């Protein structure tokens, strides 16, 4: 436990991070920044898992283990996403979402 910090305080931070991530995903125009917003969401999830485990269920490790796997998978996802974004850049000479609109409706 950390002195003077309740589980509620940390949850406020993680929930705020989650919604900032979703907001960023919707309004950002750069593909890399969109990817960063997703990472923000995943990190909010990690904070949730760790804090629940530490404060509420300290005798089990499920939350810690889960957050490790989330981190690993996020790296794999980012690798594939960046590879694809790189190809977008080669075709378009830019990674603005406004350029990626050959298909619509």
């Amino acid at each position: 436990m950390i002195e003077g910090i309740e589980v509620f305080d940390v949850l406020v931070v993680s929930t705020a991070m989650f919604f900032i991530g979703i907001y960023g995903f919707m309004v950002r125009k750069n593909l890399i920044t969109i990817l960063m917003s997703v990472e923000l969401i995943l990190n909010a999830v990690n904070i949730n898992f760790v804090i629940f485990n530490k404060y509420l269920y300290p005798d089990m490790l499920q939350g810690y283990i889960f957050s490790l796997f989330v981190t690993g998978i996020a790296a794999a996802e980012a690798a594939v996403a960046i590879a694809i974004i790189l190809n977008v850049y080669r075709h378009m000479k830019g990674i603005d979402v406004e350029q990626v609109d050959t298909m619509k409706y």
Partner: protein
Amino acid sequence: METATLLMMRNELSLLIVILLLLLVELFAGQGKRIPYIATGLFLVHTLLGFWPLPEGTLFGGMFRSSPLITIIKSVLNTGVLMLFMQAGSYLQKDSNRGKITEYYILTLATLLGMYFMISAGDFLMFYLGLELATIPLAALVAYNLSQMKSIEAGAKFILLAALASGIMLFGISLIYGATGSVYFADLAEQLQLSPMLFAALAFFLTGLGFKISLVPFHFWTADVYEGAPTSVAAYLSVISKGAAVFVLITLLFTVFEPLFAAWEILIYLMAVLTITIGNLFALRQQNMQRFLAFSSIAQAGFILLGVIAGTQYGMSTVIYFLLVYIFSNLGAFGVAAIVYNSSGKINIDDYRGFYQTNPKLSLVMLLSLFSLAGIPPVAGFFGKFFLFAAAAEKGYYWLVLIAVVNTIISLYYYLRVVRAMFLDRSEEPIGRIHSDVLTRLALAISVAGIVLAGVFSQVFDWIYTVSWGM
């Protein structure tokens, strides 16, 4: 652990062996044009092995489950993938795909492995790993055609939205963990009680699966990705990926989230109405064949929810039966569209004018598949839809069934528009005669046989009914 218990995951092990063998084949035999035959042959062996029944049980302290129903679902997915491989051979042998033929097979099989684990998962960790293994390689497959901007654009849209959907789903899982202290399905079913926090968790969680099934608030990627991806990948997304996700959705809702029925009833009801209606309305105005099939597959996913919401043993068996029929019909339609696109480069519905004059057999396959998707009586699709409606009506969801029936009638318009273009309209320059290879023809023949036979023999449905269960 004994070897005998480990053999409970025999399906996964043999699929893994097939993937490793394919890597070796690439190493020693190079990127020849024989690879599609080798890969299809290896997968055929795996499919035949998969029909061997497996005992019921769990592995790794409950993380991995096996049951007769799960084995059947895996066999159904195997059959679909096998037909897809048979159809994909001629596309992959094109010169533009030189040097990356094996990649297609390895990535596809990796996603299939992910779906296996997702279906067999006994806790949220295994489920999440399976879901990601079934999603990330799929993004690479969607962007397979690196020389085309459309394909890459589809890949970018797919991976970013998939990452967002799985992030939201994980947030839901973390809330469930916070409320109960466990991620094991077996523990959760006893501990869940309806509370505002769990309602939010459930809504977040459904985002992840809703994305995979392309239910309506989460469907925005579907049309673009189906249009940009190679046709065989689009078929894989619409049939195999969706089928596996639907099955996981129904098992999770019936077992883990059973105590929250009052919550997910509302959510599924809303999604069903929205999915059927919006999928249909957008399908009406499509010109591109792949886009048209994308919206049709969104609408079909909405119909599936009618069986899910019923929550009974009958409901579950109707969903599985519908999925089986849907695999055959959609693979038939996508198969013909792929043959036409690969041999003539034509993809618009108007290009299909006069198709019957030049290619009577292919247009008959397309006719049967579209009739089955629309639900016109003699073929299996009619019974699939009819059973789904019956399952929902049995529990008193009359308004939902009414909306679904009205939408079925609307859907006749756009399915028959293609049929009309093929059979009744004349064209100055119809698509020329197409000679497809033996494997493709065999795959289409299996589709047609499935569409017709699954509708004629009631034993199929009875057999599925005996292995299903209800809430």
